């Protein structure tokens, strides 16, 4: 047996926009074991619900993560609506779906760019982020901000999209589809990208099930699990097709996310076509009493909010389990056996969002 070395990967590392450290136990060039060291972005925001009232916490939930911000606030609002038995208007459900799916497109494009950056394919990075700007501009035109939309509220949404806005969404979706048609097949069939991703960071279906993988990581290993199937918000009416792959490697995870980007555009089109008229929120009175577990599907997988209210305007407890937290254990199973140079690609392939993970 050759000598073992421990290499710290991170916290400040060129491919990571956020700090996390992986302690890699190496034998020559091969990784034998990996151990995460987190806590560089732990703020402790779960405790803040005791100081801020439950309506202010919508904005707190939005700032759990700067990427899937809107979906965090929607999960929080859905949880409170369940505790307080509030039925939100149909139009609000559709608006949540539209903004949610547009958010998913921006998150997947961001991820595709960062993955390309991790294997040195700068063209794909730049191109994906150029398309992403179209999505961010759309969010800004419809919601008023590029990243932190601030449109969620308990009982619906705070802002409506006008008919011109809906037409604008359809135009942007068509333009995005044109861009995807041009560059997604190129990315998926590129020789050098296949060299870096096919067979790298394999996760078998059994491992994925055993370690509790969620989202695209689970779907790329052949587990057809997507919380949108339960039909929350307007997913029941709009319908969607689950995207799965079976290979379980980095390439399969890339294919799943690329497939989902197309699926998102289709859902947005169907939602705009079926958009009901009416109010966008209902007034919510009183304070929450009781406990609930709210779940929905974020770009990275299933997110869980446990909320407990005791009749006061402040919640008693909020606990967030984000998808990356669930995907950390599968990541540790993917790394052993790979070469050091493949570590950035494998880490990026689970689409890590560390600020979510540590809260």
């Amino acid at each position, binding site marked *: 047996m050759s000598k073992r070395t421990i290499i710290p990967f991170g916290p400040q590392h060129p491919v990571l926009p956020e700090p996390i450290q992986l302690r890699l136990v190496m034998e020559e060039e091969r990784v034998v074991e990996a151990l995460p060291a987190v806590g560089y972005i*732990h703020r402790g925001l779960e405790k803040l619900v005791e100081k801020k009232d439950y309506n202010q916490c919508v904005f707190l939930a939005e700032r759990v993560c700067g990427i899937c911000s809107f979906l965090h606030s929607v999960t929080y609002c859905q949880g409170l609506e369940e505790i307080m038995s509030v039925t939100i208007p149909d139009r609000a459900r559709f608006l949540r779906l539209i903004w949610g799916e547009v958010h998913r497109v921006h998150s997947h494009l961001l991820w595709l760019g960062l993955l390309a950056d991790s294997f040195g394919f700068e063209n794909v990075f730049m191109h994906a982020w150029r398309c992403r700007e179209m999505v961010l501009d759309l969010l800004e035109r419809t919601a008023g901000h590029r990243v932190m939309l601030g449109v969620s509220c308990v009982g619906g949404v705070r802002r409506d999209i006008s008919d011109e806005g809906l037409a604008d969404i359809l135009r942007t979706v068509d333009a995005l589809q044109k861009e995807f048609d041009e560059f997604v097949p190129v990315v998926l069939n590129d020789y050098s990208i296949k060299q870096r991703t096919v067979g790298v960071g394999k996760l078998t279906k059994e491992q994925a099930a055993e370690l*509790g993988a969620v989202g695209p990581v689970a779907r790329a290993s052949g587990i057809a699990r997507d919380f949108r199937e339960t039909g929350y918000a307007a997913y029941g009416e709009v319908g969607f097709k689950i995207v799965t792959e079976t290979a379980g490697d980095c390439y399969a995870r890339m294919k799943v996310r690329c497939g989902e980007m197309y699926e998102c555009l289709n859902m947005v089109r169907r939602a705009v076509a079926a958009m009901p008229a009416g109010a966008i929120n209902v007034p919510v009175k009183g304070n929450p009493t009781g406990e609930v*577990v709210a779940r929905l599907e974020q770009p990275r997988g299933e997110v869980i909010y446990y909320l407990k209210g005791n009749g006061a305007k402040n919640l008693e407890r909020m606990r967030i389990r984000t998808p990356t937290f669930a995907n950390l254990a599968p990541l540790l199973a993917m790394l052993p056996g790979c070469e050091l140079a493949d570590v950035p690609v494998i880490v990026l392939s689970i689409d890590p969002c560390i600020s979510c993970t540590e809260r």
Partner: protein
Amino acid sequence: MLNNELPVTRDTLLNEVAARRHQGYRFVTVTCVDLGDRFDILYHFDKDYVLYNLRLSLGRTENLPSISSIFFAAVLVENELKDLFGIPVTDLAIDYGGRFLLSEGSPVAPQRKPDAPPAQPAQTKDGAVK
């Protein structure tokens, strides 16, 4: 009260968790709620989009047996409980010794209620071990 909830004790916890695994459930997460006099520890499992919850009521000075020998994925969240609530979790597959999320200089067991009795000696010893 959550749907599909089963109260467990420290003695029956591991058997019940193993039974969930046998039935094909996926481990989701563990939630800890500080009730002031006791902790409520909720174990969430999922199968076909339906959650199944085990509720364990834990005294403030009691040890919590780790389920990481049954579901390895639980090891991270159990380390988090140890950090944030100062609950001594025994038999962890990987023990960060109270330095998972927190570091030197951070408050000790910050999510434990302030009116609670001071953390037991075993926990402060853990905090000192790197």
